[in-house]
């Protein structure tokens, strides 16, 4: 089963017992899943179960070298979609993508990777 990783995350994030939910506080940090993908077409969904005022989330895809003490989309190793203004990020450059999203929304993430070589 693909779950949120306990050993591939910023230690300050709180992971639920079933390892399917995570809560953060203060500045952005990242958690990755237990399994990654290398080629082919893959898709996952995430639901925002809570988002207090002034808080935000960035979710997306990350390689294993992506900095965990920064938001997803910070460096060249990750790509994200932000709840606030619906901005997409890569290498810390934000570009318009969609309207904002929040509590109760279900988000889908698709990736299509070519075969190696």
């Amino acid at each position, binding site marked *: 089963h693909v779950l949120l990783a306990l050993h591939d995350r910023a230690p300050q994030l709180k992971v639920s017992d079933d390892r399917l939910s995570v809560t953060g506080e203060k*500045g952005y940090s990242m958690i990755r899943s237990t399994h990654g993908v290398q080629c082919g077409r893959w898709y996952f969904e995430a639901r925002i179960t809570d988002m207090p005022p002034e808080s935000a989330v960035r979710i997306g895809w990350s390689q294993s070298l992506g*900095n965990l*003490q*920064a938001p997803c989309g*910070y460096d060249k190793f990750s790509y994200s979609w932000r709840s606030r203004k619906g901005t997409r990020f890569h290498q810390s450059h934000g570009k318009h993508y969609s309207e904002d999203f929040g509590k109760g929304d279900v988000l889908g993430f698709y990736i299509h990777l070519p075969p190696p070589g």
Partner: protein
Amino acid sequence: DLPMAMRFRKLQEHAKEAVGVYRSHIHGRGLFCKRNIDSGEMVIEYAGEVIRSSLTDKREKYYESKGIGCYMFRIDDFEVVDATMHGSAARFINHSCEPNCYSRVINVDGKKHIVIFAMRPISKGEELTYDYKFPIEEVKIPCSCGSKKCRKYLN
């Protein structure tokens, strides 16, 4: 002889009477002794903004772009004290290849602090210095400490 945490709590009251910032031949301004300091005495905290390490790159670039000298001190792998825009007088301590102080990270009530200690007895009027731990890089930064055992370069 008191526990570290207790010594640290007293430090805030006593640091300002013990040390002050004055003109220095090493690098413009420096931290000087205003009364005799004993060997091993806690002198001053290197206080500033505690930031996550992942923020240092961006901050360094910003300071460089504004021509602001950067004063950062690493606490551990995760946190750094940035005294560039908000800090204590400890940011003015200059480097010397023959220092009279050293730094240590101490833990008080679950929070880490960088503290400067006296390596030996320091007399009133002496400049306080410690040995900066610059990373070794190809581009060398000349040292102006003027000590007999000067290594010529900071890095």
